[in-house]
């Protein structure tokens, strides 16, 4: 049994240096204080919030499904936008993904492909939707263009990563029998990425369906426009009905796409 002086023990801290820990704590608290102080809060208007909320929720409940045809048309348009955008986006993402795959494309082509994909991803679809609305007018065309760009960004990136991880042996085998670039692509690259491509397409369809509800808010067609109108006219019960249907559709679509992905995988 030990009889020496008492031994202490403290848990080794996550960040070793005490100065760094102190500095970080000060930095975090300082940031929070600065942010809260400099952000403009209109307390007068905010304090009106709770009674307003009560009025809105009171007006919104129960949800009104009277204008069902309007709801249905809005959703139909959202589906169409999502379907066409997914089709175009997935088709177009394939060449860009091939371009953006480090193991297949020469460097300059790779950089161009990467740039296109990064730019497609940087902007929130809503911003892109506004720009397209200004360019080609209100309506689903702007929505389709927006979501196509959005799809190219997401599917393209994931696909490029897939291509970078394929079994190189198969490509070598094709090359060694004298296959050209396209034939190599078709026989060695595409079969390896095709299952994932189908999964990605379903996921993107689901994603586009959600996004199509939103781009409508800025005029690019779909259920979003219907929702925006309802809000604008203070038709909170109709708005609530639309929201409920949006949630339901998203849940169903998530379920269906999950099921399809499992079957196809």
């Amino acid at each position, binding site marked *: *049994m*030990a009889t020496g002086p*008492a*031994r*202490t*023990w*403290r*848990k*080794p801290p996550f960040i070793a240096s005490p100065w760094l820990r102190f500095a970080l704590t000060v930095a975090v608290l300082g940031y929070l204080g600065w942010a809260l102080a400099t952000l403009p809060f209109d307390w007068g208007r905010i304090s009106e919030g709770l009674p307003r909320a009560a009025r809105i929720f009171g007006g919104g409940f129960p949800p009104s499904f009277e204008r069902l045809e309007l709801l249905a048309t809005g959703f139909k348009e959202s589906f169409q936008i999502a379907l066409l955008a997914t089709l175009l986006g997935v088709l177009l993402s394939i060449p860009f993904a091939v371009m953006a795959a480090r193991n297949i494309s020469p460097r300059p082509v790779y950089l161009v492909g990467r740039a296109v994909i990064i730019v497609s991803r940087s902007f929130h679809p809503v911003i892109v939707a506004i720009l397209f609305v200004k360019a080609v007018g209100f309506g689903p065309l702007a929505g389709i263009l927006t979501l196509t760009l959005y799809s190219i960004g997401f599917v393209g990136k994931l696909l490029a990563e897939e291509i970078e991880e394929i079994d190189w042996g198969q490509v070598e085998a094709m090359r060694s029998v004298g296959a050209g670039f396209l034939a190599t692509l078709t026989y060695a690259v595409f079969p390896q990425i095709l299952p994932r491509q189908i999964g990605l397409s379903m996921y993107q369809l689901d994603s586009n369906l959600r996004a199509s509800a939103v781009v409508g808010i800025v005029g690019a067609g779909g259920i979003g426009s219907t929702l925006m109108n309802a809000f604008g006219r203070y038709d909170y019960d109709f708005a609530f009905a639309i929201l409920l249907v949006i949630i339901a559709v998203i849940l169903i679509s998530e379920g269906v796409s999950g099921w399809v992905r499992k079957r196809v995988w």
Partner: protein
Amino acid sequence: MLEISQLVKRYGRHEPVLKELDLSVEGNSVVSIVGASGAGKSTLLRCINRLIEPTSGSIKLNGCELSTLRGQALRQSRRRIGMVFQGFNLIDRLTVMENVLAGRLGYVSFYQAWRRRFPQADIERAFELMERVGIAHYANKRADELSGGERQRVGVVRALMQEPDILLADEPTASLDPVTSEQIMKLMQTLASELSLPVLINIHNVAQARAYTERIVGLRHGRMIFDGPPERFDKAALEEVYGGIEAPDESVAPSVGEEQA
């Protein structure tokens, strides 16, 4: 002093896993429980500290009835029962010292546990025990950086930190190589006598049961069919316990040295 009487455990409407088991463990004996897989060894041990709920029967530890306790009283009774697991059940991302001190969780407040401000006496005892088993130099190492034998030692120290009235070990050596498992068995045997602690060990290896324990209890299909000293556990008894179910593990480790465990 552990007294189990008429213990029954049944899942749903199936055949009971434990059938009216009676067992008494006195003083500081080291008792091994042998039996084929499915005989009910693990279930028996886990019924004692209520990790599995007994269907009926009584379990008394030092006169206190365990099977009816709830909430705070149950947790306090669990403090008195230390358990060593087959899979070591350590918290991999925490240090060895934290794993060891976790044995005191039943005794400290939430704040002390959160800030790792355990009482000095606990820390002293932790160091003592770790030195005794030979892992003190690992105190600030992550638990998953240790070898299997070392991790089980941490498990043993954690259980002993509870200052328990009884130690339960559920196949403590099944995941270890033969040499290490002999070391662990020897360790538990010596610690049991040093600390005057009764120990119940579930074990598959009959040779180790014979060598390191002073009493063998044989289970078959939930019933106790052998209870006696190792000398009496002969071929016939072996056949009764394992016969027709599986071949018992009688392997002996290649020349285990006399090193201090």
